[in-house]
């Protein structure tokens, strides 16, 4: 059997990028309403060279479907998949734990509380995007509370952070359940359910643009920290002894992950499993160094989420299943298969 680790990294990156491009094109055709290739191409032309010229006379219905529904959905899959994949790679390196994911630092429970509270209590004073802003802010607040409680004499011991994170997340989840049981109006129920299970439907260009820039900056920060994150995999004492400022790396990385993942969760809801498995697939292909794992996780996260999203649209006719259900449903068997076929001893000791 070919060991994929031995193939040149450039070729693997090129292949993943090509696969993503094909998937993006394919996804343009996926949806409950059929739009012709001509209209999709014409809409893309119009977008590139000015929306109001429209020499191809695209029907308004098709233009709305392509420009306002499918494109943001596809791009959201890329942004959300990248942020969750990178977040997973970073968090697993910091905690030296293969079963951690970005949600473990408190992002998911915080965002859930913010979103559920804003929907449940009909909080709209922050305008159209109140739920997103609430989810984002609550996610950050919970992460910083966990980080603050975990600090001990200027250091944040990772096991301590992990335990505090899990405890506070459970505490916040019980608040979410309380809000759900006592306050949710009937019309909010479906929105909340879709949010808690994760969905890429109905994301607007405006929110996507803001989130895109947050993810871009935080991903770059994580990427710039790759050497520090690599040394931390050998233990904090080792990292310090080779010259890494471990506490600063932890702080910068956790802030970057918290900002990036909170931002994507605020628009997509809680899409599970991506942050957990994607970095492992990256490592199986490229080895353990975050120099490759971080960009690979962005690509694989995008590919995985886009596939899952296409499946969620196709699986039941005229009905869209929340993508978070598909990520776990399809992701688990695929991941177990990959682990068996590609691990080559890495996970056996």
């Amino acid at each position: 059997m070919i060991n994929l680790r031995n193939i040149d990294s450039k070729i693997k990156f090129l292949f993943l990028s090509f696969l993503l491009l094909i998937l993006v094109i394919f996804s343009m055709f996926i949806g409950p309403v059929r739009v012709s290739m001509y209209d999709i191409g014409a809409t893309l032309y119009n977008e590139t060279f000015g929306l109001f010229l429209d020499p191809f006379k695209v029907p308004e219905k098709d233009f709305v479907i392509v420009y306002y529904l499918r494109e943001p959905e596809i791009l959201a899959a890329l942004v959300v998949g990248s942020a969750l994949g990178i977040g997973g790679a970073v968090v697993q390196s910091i905690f030296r734990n293969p079963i951690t994911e970005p949600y473990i630092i408190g992002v998911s429970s915080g965002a859930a509380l913010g979103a559920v509270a804003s929907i449940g209590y009909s909080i709209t004073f922050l305008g159209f995007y109140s739920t997103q802003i609430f989810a984002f802010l609550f996610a950050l607040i919970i992460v910083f509370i966990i980080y603050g409680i975990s600090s001990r004499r200027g250091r944040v011991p990772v096991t301590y952070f992990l335990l505090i994170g899990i405890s506070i997340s459970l505490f916040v989840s019980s608040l979410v359940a309380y809000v759900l049981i006592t306050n949710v109006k009937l019309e909010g129920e479906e929105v909340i359910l879709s949010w808690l299970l994760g969905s890429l439907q109905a994301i607007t260009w405006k929110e996507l643009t803001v989130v895109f820039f947050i993810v871009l900056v935080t991903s770059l920060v994580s990427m710039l920290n790759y050497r520090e994150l690599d040394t931390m995999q050998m233990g904090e004492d080792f990292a310090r002894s080779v010259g890494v400022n471990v506490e600063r790396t932890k702080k910068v990385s956790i802030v970057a992950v918290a900002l990036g993942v909170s931002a994507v969760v605020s628009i997509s809801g809680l899409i599970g499993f991506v942050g957990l498995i994607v970095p492992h697939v990256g490592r199986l292909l490229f080895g353990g160094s975050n120099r490759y794992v971080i960009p690979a996780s962005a690509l694989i996260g995008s590919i995985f989420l886009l596939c899952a999203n296409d499946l969620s649209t196709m699986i039941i006719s005229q009905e869209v299943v929340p993508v978070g259900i598909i990520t776990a449903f399809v992701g688990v068997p695929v991941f177990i298969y990959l682990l068996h076929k590609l691990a080559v001893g890495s996970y056996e000791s």
Partner: protein
Amino acid sequence: MKVEINNLEIRLGSFRSSVNHLSMENGVWGIAGPNGSGKTSLVKVIDGLIEPVSGNVNIDGKNVQEMNYRERAKIISYLPQEIANPFNFRVSDVVKLSGYSGDGNEGRVADALEMVGIPDLKDREFSTLSGGEKRLVMLAGTIYQNSSLIIMDEPETFLDIKHKHILKKVVRKLSRNGKMILVVLHDIESIVSMTDSTVLLSQGQVVDSGTTGSVINEKNLETVFGIRFIKDSSSQTARFIEYDDEVDT
């Protein structure tokens, strides 16, 4: 190179250690003593990994606590007692990690692995190695780091006879190349055969320090370990055998 420790006090939970004055200069220094005597704590303070409650450690007159991590890493490298399992790293990747504060040179990775006798393991998956092989890889890392002071915490753990022999040769070679080495050891025979000088610790205090020949004697060993030792007169080198009163009588 000179390591000087003054008025040092370390607290780790209920464990306390204090060293009024200790001076170590050049050569191979053994840090010896029973379990829990504060050997690892002492070397971790020297490498700046543990903040002491008070006192200071000076290396060639420079206070270690006042250096940043990079400055320290250029002077001191540390072979830890515990070895973590990173995700999917190859042996050469692990060695390269030690060059974080250095210039990084692919050729020197091979040289370091050659020096510890495992050049063939370069492309092996680190997590699939035996405990002893992992320790040799980490030792290669400390060589790759190219600092003037090398601290080794229990380097003989998991090593078989052949690898122990390699370790001793490497320590001697590094010392000949002008490196100062602090090595935490359990085994008295290893202390005697590997080190020029020794610091003997018990319950967080320095019992004695100086040339290994003068420090490792029946009286000091009995004080520190609480059991009697006798010098093996049949051995060419200084060798001590535990002397069990109950069995003898």
